[in-house]
């Protein structure tokens, strides 16, 4: 193959002197003002919303489905050692290998050493966020291997030397013309009308060469099925199937939290994952790989390796309040509905897992440098409302804020004073009402003088770039007494 690929830029690398929080604020401001980006994302999200709603309507009792999935994952996570060992035993019995990696470096070293020892020159990868998390591709490329991302979206962002924009749709931020230009530059073929059918056909042709040349296929896993000893992989394109069928070595890399107890659990998890991920009733290829090729089988890999990555996950188990974060099935629904994600986009987070689940998880996996992500939320709860395993995402963002503040305390003495004042007001309703009365009048006066958004405006964080929020004539309590309360109580 003549095409050479750049290694993708690992998510989370911050080459500048800015802190992760400063970079986040800078990029969020830039991205949210990028109208072209917003239009592309709006179109994609509108399409997803319609499909997602249709998909949910096909399920008789969506809330029961969420509940069932929550129970399955809860059982697995709360007996994680038992189910991982059951899975391992099954794989070993069939001649497979299971490697337990404490962190990304150990996992990368195992796969690299395996590939080098087997004389691997070409690797095909199906989509795996865990391999993004541990920056696997650059490690293999550093020892001279060609690594091909084979999911179309991943292939596109690999050609652009970018990290995935979204955990399900990695190239969501690009339109067909940008992809046409990219293919012309990197693959040397022009498709003037940028017809998606032709663009896909070009990628298929290029990647077919890679599939048939590769000695090693690397996949992720959506689930590890304990009683069957099988790795479950969901793909629509079929790249996951080719990556795990044609090369002589299959390596499945995944987090320890992906285990589920029983094969039949997939009867609920597969449809719910597909509905939440893309709105489909089920993903086109719901695959189960349980070992190397058997003697009586026509094809398949001679070697089957499963790499189980911890990388901070086991630490979350000790925190019973936050343990359910490990229930996540990486469907991307919380990203799609999040008003923050929809405006600032996936790359702004500068993390492997963006959006609400990434904001909750990343500080636990990568430390306090990412605690600012706990504030990358309006706390509207939309993420929680769509989570197919009922993770209380916005509460976990609040838990993280609380826990980080306990450790580091308020950031400034001003902040400390503000919170003391707030606490006093909350404990004394009359004082609170007086404060509200003073604030409404002061702001009205200030805004009347045209000073909104200036240094004198206490609401400056909002109003320096936006029209000030209209001030109500009455307090909330007064409105509640007059009409709101009656309406809320059904005019009793």
């Amino acid at each position, binding site marked *: 193959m003549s095409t050479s690929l750049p290694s993708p830029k690992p998510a989370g690398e911050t080459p500048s002197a800015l802190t992760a929080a400063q970079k986040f604020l800078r990029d969020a401001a830039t991205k949210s003002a990028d109208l072209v980006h917003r239009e592309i994302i709006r179109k994609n999200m509108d399409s997803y919303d319609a499909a997602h709603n249709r998909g949910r309507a096909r399920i008789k009792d969506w809330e029961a*489905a969420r509940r069932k999935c929550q129970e399955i994952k809860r059982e697995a996570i709360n007996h994680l050692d038992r189910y991982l060992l059951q899975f391992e035993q099954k794989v070993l019995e069939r001649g497979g290998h299971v490697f*337990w990696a*404490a962190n990304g470096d150990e996992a990368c070293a195992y796969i690299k050493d395996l590939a080098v020892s087997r004389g691997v020159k070409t690797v095909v990868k199906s989509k795996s966020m865990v391999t993004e998390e541990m920056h696997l591709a650059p490690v293999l490329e550093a020892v001279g291997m060609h690594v091909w991302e084979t999911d179309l979206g991943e292939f596109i962002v690999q050609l652009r030397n970018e990290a995935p924009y979204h955990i399900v749709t990695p190239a969501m931020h690009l339109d*067909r013309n940008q992809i046409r230009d990219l293919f012309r530059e990197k693959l040397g073929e022009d498709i003037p009308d940028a017809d998606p059918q032709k663009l896909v056909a070009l*990628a298929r042709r290029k990647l077919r060469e890679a599939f048939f040349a590769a000695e090693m296929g690397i996949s992720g896993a959506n689930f590890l099925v304990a009683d069957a000893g099988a790795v479950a992989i969901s793909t629509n394109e079929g*790249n996951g199937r080719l990556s795990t069928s044609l090369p002589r070595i299959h390596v499945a890399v995944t987090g320890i939290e992906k285990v589920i107890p029983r094969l039949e659990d997939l009867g609920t998890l597969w449809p719910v994952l597909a509905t939440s991920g893309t709105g489909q*009733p089920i993903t086109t290829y719901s695959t189960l790989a349980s070992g190397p090729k058997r003697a009586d*089988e026509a094809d398949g890999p001679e070697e089957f390796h499963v790499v189980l990555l911890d990388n901070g996950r086991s630490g979350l188990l*000790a925190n*019973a309040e936050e343990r359910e974060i490990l229930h996540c099935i990486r469907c991307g629904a919380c990203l799609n509905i999040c008003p923050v994600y929809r405006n600032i986009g996936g790359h702004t987070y500068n993390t492997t897992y963006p959006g609400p689940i990434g904001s909750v998880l990343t500080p636990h996996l990568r430390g306090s440098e990412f605690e600012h992500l706990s504030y990358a939320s309006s706390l509207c709860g939309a993420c929680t409302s769509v989570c197919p395993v009922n993770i209380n995402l916005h509460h976990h963002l609040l838990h993280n804020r609380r826990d980080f503040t306990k450790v580091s305390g308020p950031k400034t003495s001003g902040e400390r004073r503000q919170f003391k004042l707030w606490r006093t007001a909350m404990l004394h309703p009359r004082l609170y009402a007086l404060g509200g009365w003073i604030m409404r009048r002061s702001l009205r006066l200030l805004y009347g003088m045209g000073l909104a958004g200036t240094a004198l405006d206490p609401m400056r964080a909002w109003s320096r770039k936006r029209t000030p929020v209209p001030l109500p004539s009455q307090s909330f309590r007064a409105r509640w007494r007059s009409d709101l309360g009656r309406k809320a109580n059904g005019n009793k």
Partner: protein
Amino acid sequence: MATSNPSREAILARIREGLRTPAQPMEGNTFYGPIFEAVENPLERFQQECKANLMECQLTDDAAASAQALTQVLQSLPPGEIFIQDDPVLRRLMTVAGPQRQVRWSSEGGPREQSQATITLVDALIAQTGSIFVSASGGGRGASVVAPTHIVYAFAKQLVPDLVTALRNATADGRLDKNSYACVISGSSRTADIEKILVQGAHGPMRLVVIVETSA
């Protein structure tokens, strides 16, 4: 050779230590009714779902009609080799269908890149999702994904109402102990990675044809 696993015990110890802290109780109602709509007429539902999945489903009355349906599908394909699962049922069918083209049987190895189509049997048909359930013993892993067209010869008696039943059956008959691979396939290969526009034939078959014989 056993895999060297220096971190295995440490990870397991951390997991066990973490799980010493009891889980928080689950909130909300733990009793609920059926999640999915019951499948009243499996064959009818299977056909509906196949259509939604952009699959071609043909019902036939007997083996002769199946052979005729197969011949018609093969005639619609470009010239070139076809790959067939080496099974007595398919050998008999091919004797009647008589394709005028080169055949590679799965006993000779996996399908080649130049294969124009593959023909396989299935383990089960799933009505709820319009899916076929295949495993490695059905001609190997590549049999259902390498060629641009995948043709399936199945029987109505293989139809199960839903996914849970199909998976329970697979557990009961130890399918993943007897096969290194299995797959629930619900349509042709596809992608919507470019502007969420659906394109068929991303990496695997652009066409999936299921011939279901109802008399058997």
